[in-house]
């Protein structure tokens, strides 16, 4: 399965993505703006700064991302992962430095992509 780019729930890839998603959510919950910004994908960070007209640490806490709880599920396919936490669904992308949050504050919309408070351009 690993040779097809699919990684199961307990695989190292999925565990790494889950760890980053939890670290990001914890930073948001505890107002750790700088830490949360460090886990954002470059395009997501620049989209946030552009739309808010201020630097990421000042802008991210104004996004009112939902408070999150335990991990409900996590899956990774190649360079992408989805981590569902209680209260939020996050999409992550793998870069050379590791997993980064591409979208957060995401709610499902039947038949359409998730509607996300924070996402890359």
């Amino acid at each position, binding site marked *: 399965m690993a040779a*097809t780019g699919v990684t199961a729930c307990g695989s190292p890839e999925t565990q790494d993505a889950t760890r980053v998603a939890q670290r990001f959510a914890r930073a948001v919950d505890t107002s750790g703006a700088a830490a949360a910004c460090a886990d954002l994908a470059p395009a997501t960070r620049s989209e946030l700064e552009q739309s808010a007209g201020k630097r990421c640490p000042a802008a991210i806490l104004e996004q009112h991302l939902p408070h999150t709880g335990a991990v409900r599920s996590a899956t990774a396919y190649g*360079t992408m992962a989805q981590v569902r936490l209680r209260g939020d669904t996050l999409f992550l992308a793998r870069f050379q430095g590791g997993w980064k949050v591409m979208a957060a504050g995401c709610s499902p919309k039947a038949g359409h992509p998730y509607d996300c408070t924070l996402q890359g351009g």
Partner: protein
Amino acid sequence: MRRFVKESSLSLFFGAIFVAALAGQAFSGWHQFNDAQLAANLGLVSFGRYLTSADFVADVAENWQSEYLQFLLYIAATVWFLQKGSPESKEPGKGGLESDEDQKVGEHARPDSPAWARAGGARTLVFSWSLTGVMGLIFLGSWFAQSLGGWAAFNETRLQRLQDPLAWGQYVTNADFWSRTLQNWQSEFLAVGSMAVLSIYLRQRGSPESKPVGEPHASTGTDE
């Protein structure tokens, strides 16, 4: 060694161009993948990681399965279906599995026939179908690999678009799987069907896939 190369030049030639083409596909596919990643503001992957990626597995397996299906169908279809004038066909009236005498099996085997052709019973039955059997297994294995690779690659794209991934069972009934599959099948069926028909009227001097240049158009089979 020299003799081996001379006697096996056909398989060595195809083995060599296969490896070269696969290497070229891997290298160009890696660049194409990273171009798409760059355009989507996503991370680049190393060549090693690309070789184990869903994208590469799906691209390789979808072509393999269709090629093996093509030859599997051609081998099996030419048992029963005929094409008058084609060197790829048996003569009219000879459709079917043929007699044991024609096939040199059991008591009709020659001293130098393969042991399983002489043995009779289950072993001769298995050996009689071994070519289609192995081709069929490779086809099914490649098609299954395509389904896994295609599924993972499709889900990777879905996640980029902020959509939920699909289960494997959903993917194999999805248009992406059937589009990848049928676009390969139709081209294989066209190529093999047109070869059967074109070889009635056209020739390639020296090729066993063609009738001799002076053979009449109406002659069927290669032995005439």
